[in-house]
């Protein structure tokens, strides 16, 4: 840590010293550095000795020799040289080398003497004890390192001196009560140690984590609880982390805002339900510490986090508080109403959502207004009100609106109009699932070669409204009346996939096999893949392997071949299960 930084600094200084100029001119020191770079440590050591023969107190050369001898396990050879340097020009750099050399030579008394002499010159410095502890640690001598730090604490007369170092050793010793106490002391003195504390304590084995969390609880200080919460967040329990910190005494203390904000900064990563919920709780608590518009802003963020977590009740509660907030600016109020509309759509309260949106529309910026209208339109589509949805986004020419309008036309049975709109929406609009679904529908429309089909629109509309059973029946009926090459196979394949999704495997297999025997090769290959996928899901591994092999051999140029080969690897156990 600090001593490592000191050592790095010394080495940097060495490189920047007047010798550096000589290195470039091909001096012994320059050649020694070049040999070090090539890994010829024996040669480098010889050259560094040559430099030291002329200048026994040359610190860069001493450091160079130390670097060259360390990988050869010959550091003990430096003892007379270090003694000579200490006599000629004692300095912190020389004492540091002396401590490392004597520690490597298993001469703890000599190392301690060097520490004492250094400490006598710099009585308030941690560095001599840090250097000794670090040297002992590099020799895997944890007991000496601990003794070095404890001696330093006694000499320095500060209860929190060298706490981070002692905390690190306690964690390695699995002495969690001590580790908790030392790291807490370290953070209370130097908050900048928090990343180090998290890095050291975050690495302990899962089985030991409860013991550490309990030790931190017993310690009970705000910093201890903050460490515990940070660790819990790091270990994948953000909600538990926030609840623990909020329940702690620290969360009610004078530094509450700082602790909460620090934890909020730690809550990063993929937004899961738990993480959003944790953010909502934390933002709500932070808001209580804030004043004026900043508090209102935090409340709005909390409401949005709750809404994203699917906790509509908590979101509504925050929005209710915000509605009474005299400090809420017009833009904040608009944001609050926007969040409320989202909550209402998700709850299926479309009339109220619609009314709120119309009231709010003028106060929203264009992007926000568009986002809200699309969300509302999708809600109306799901509710079966295609006309209302269409009207809402009629003036919207964005690709997102084209995608929604394409779906509306499709459900109305206007296949030609739907195809144009969906094609214009492009392959990248919306999330991955929506984009994939759109491409699939376009593929179906392409083979159907019909401009209009109210029956298909009705079947797919049932699907949109989550009536899968009704959709399957409608699709099968439609497939029965359509030639295989003109879309009948694709309709049957879609029905089969829906049946598979409903868990009706035997019915699904019947449909897949019918498509596999049809004269539509692209559909046949896709049906074989779907059958193999279903068989594997159902635990019919040999059947899945046979199906997929048949697919690979019968349709070697099909677009599903890469997927099929991957699935065959999974079925054979050639790759790890997903």
């Amino acid at each position, binding site marked *: 840590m600090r001593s490592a930084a000191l050592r790095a600094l010394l080495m940097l200084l060495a490189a920047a010293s007047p010798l550096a100029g000589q290195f470039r001119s091909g001096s012994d020191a320059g050649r020694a550095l070049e040999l070090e770079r090539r890994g010829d440590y024996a040669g480098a050591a010889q050259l560094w000795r040559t430099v030291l023969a002329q200048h026994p107190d040359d610190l860069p050369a001493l450091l160079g020799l130390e670097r060259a001898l360390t990988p050869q*396990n010959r550091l003990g050879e430096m003892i007379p040289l270090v003694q000579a340097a200490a006599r000629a020009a004692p300095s912190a750099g020389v004492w540091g080398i002396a401590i490392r050399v004597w520690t490597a030579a298993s001469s703890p008394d000599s190392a301690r003497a060097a520490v004492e002499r250094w400490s006598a010159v710099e009585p308030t410095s941690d560095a001599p004890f840090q250097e000794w502890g670090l040297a002992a640690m590099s020799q895997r001598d944890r007991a000496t390192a601990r003794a070095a730090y404890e001696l330093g604490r006694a000499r320095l007369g500060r209860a929190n001196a060298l706490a981070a170092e002692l905390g690190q050793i306690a964690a390695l010793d699995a002495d969690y009560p001590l580790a908790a106490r030392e790291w807490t002391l370290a953070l209370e003195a130097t908050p900048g140690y928090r990343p180090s504390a998290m890095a050291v304590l975050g690495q302990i084995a899962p089985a030991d984590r409860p013991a550490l969390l309990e030790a931190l609880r017993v310690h009970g200080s705000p910093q201890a609880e903050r460490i515990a919460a940070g660790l819990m967040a790091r270990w994948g329990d953000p909600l538990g982390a926030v609840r623990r910190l909020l329940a702690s005494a620290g969360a009610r203390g004078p530094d509450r805002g700082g602790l909460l904000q620090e934890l909020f900064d730690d809550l990063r990563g993929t937004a899961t339900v738990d993480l959003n919920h944790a953010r909502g709780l934390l933002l709500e608590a932070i808001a209580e510490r804030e004043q004026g518009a900043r508090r209102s802003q935090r409340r709005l963020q909390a409401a949005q986090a709750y809404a994203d977590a699917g906790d509509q009740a908590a979101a509504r509660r925050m929005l209710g508080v915000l509605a009474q907030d005299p400090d809420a600016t017009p833009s904040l109020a608009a944001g609050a109403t926007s969040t409320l509309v989202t909550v209402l759509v998700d709850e299926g309260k479309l009339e109220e959502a619609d009314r709120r949106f119309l009231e709010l529309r003028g106060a929203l910026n264009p992007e926000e207004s568009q986002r809200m209208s699309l969300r509302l339109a999708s809600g109306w589509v799901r509710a079966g009100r295609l006309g209302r949805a269409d009207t809402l986004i009629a003036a919207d020419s964005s690709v997102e609106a084209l995608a929604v309008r394409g779906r509306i036309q499709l459900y109305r049975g206007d296949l030609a109009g739907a195809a144009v709109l969906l094609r214009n929406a492009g392959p990248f609009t919306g999330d991955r699932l929506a984009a994939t679904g759109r491409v699939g529908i376009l593929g179906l429309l392409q083979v159907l070669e019909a401009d209009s089909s109210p029956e298909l629109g009705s079947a797919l509309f049932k699907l949109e409204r989550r009536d899968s059973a009704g959709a399957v029946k409608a699709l099968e009926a439609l497939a029965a009346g359509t030639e295989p090459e003109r879309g009948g196979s694709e309709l049957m394949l879609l029905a089969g996939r829906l049946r598979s999704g409903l868990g009706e495997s035997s019915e699904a297999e019947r449909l897949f096999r019918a498509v596999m025997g049809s004269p539509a090769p692209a559909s046949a290959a896709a049906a074989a893949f779907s059958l193999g996928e279903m068989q594997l899901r159902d635990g019919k591994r040999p059947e899945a392997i046979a199906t997929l092999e048949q697919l690979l051999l019968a349709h070697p140029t099909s677009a599903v071949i890469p997927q099929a*080969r991957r699935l065959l690897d999974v079925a054979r*156990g050639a790759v*790890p299960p997903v």
Partner: protein
Amino acid sequence: MKRRDLLRAAVAGVVADPFARAGRVHSLGSRRASWLLVPMDDRQSDHLKAYGLTFRVLERGSRAEWFLNYRAGSFLLPSDSATQRDATLTGVTVEPIDDGRVAEIRAEIAQANMDAVPLEKAPKVAVYAPPNAAPWDDAVTMALQYAGVSFEKIWDAEVVGDGLRNYDWLHLHHEDFTGQYSKFYLTYAGSPWLQEMVDRNQRMSRQLGFPSVPAQKKAVARRIGAFVEGGGFLFAMCTATETLDLALASENADIAASFADGSPMDPDASAKMRWERALAFQGARLEQSPSLASYSDIDGHQVNTPDRRQPLGAFTLFNFSAKIDPVATMLVQNHRQVIPDFYGLTTSFMKSALRPGVTVLADEPGAPWAKYIHGERGQGTWTFLGGHDPEDPQHQIGDAPTDLSTHPHSPGYRLILNNVLFPAAKKKELKT
């Protein structure tokens, strides 16, 4: 077939046609005969499965040829229906060629640093792993499973019971032959997986009648050493490389910490090592600390020792003379010469610790360590590759397993599979 025979015959400079005797079976010598060339350069769609395709040709009793250095180590396979079907199913790129084209290729091979090595028999492959080991924690098992190379798992009971005689090729991965549970005993104390490992090993040592796990692992190491001595092919990765040699060389020294055998490590263990018994290393200084997951200074990278840990670079495969040294050439066949390095409990091997006669197959230019080494002992050979997983350079305990279907061109995994096919190489007949 013994490695030395192959080497000696190869040095004699004979280019044999492996199908000369098999022609009656496959009609491969006639003008109508056709072949499948499996290119191993950048035109190959799945380099790793190409090895499995070739292996299965041998398993079916057919023969194959390995064109060393020709299009990055291509294979020549008979164009029978089974092979064609297999290539279609696995997605391996094959190029149908006729006898005329084969003759042209042979002419090209004869005039360049290339060679044609006959492959005649699928080796019987054993992987040393505990019975309940997860299949996805071992790069070789993953490579074999992905490529479709059949293998059997064996462990201590089989090895001590002379079960190795049933196999041609043995793979070791991250087993700790010093019997110290990868020295995770203190760092991961209390972890269920470690406890299970300790229990399993202790049960096995009791079952086999040994006083401790380290004593039993030494016996296992001796059996493995005898397997190589007797003509076996050994391939080891990660920490199995270093600890196997430490176990072999420590016959007269206690190199295990007290948590493993109840007695502390001999403080003079380094001086008591009998390195002449080791396969690859000599003169190493043993790590005395029981809490440090490092065994000695053989490993150049020391991944679990913060003060000594070295950053990862890239290693370069050496070029060998295909006609003079076909064995080394086989082991380095690849479509990439420079490969990103990857950590393991043992990542690399300090060149200063290598025994005389060890062949360095790959190293990091300018660094004092080698990555990939090979040698012989008695009638057999051994190959060591440092690191844990070529496609997971920073592998940590608990990481998701590597899915090789997302790395079908992995040059690091090709090195592993080169070793699997290497024992299939046929001894070339001498001219006289």
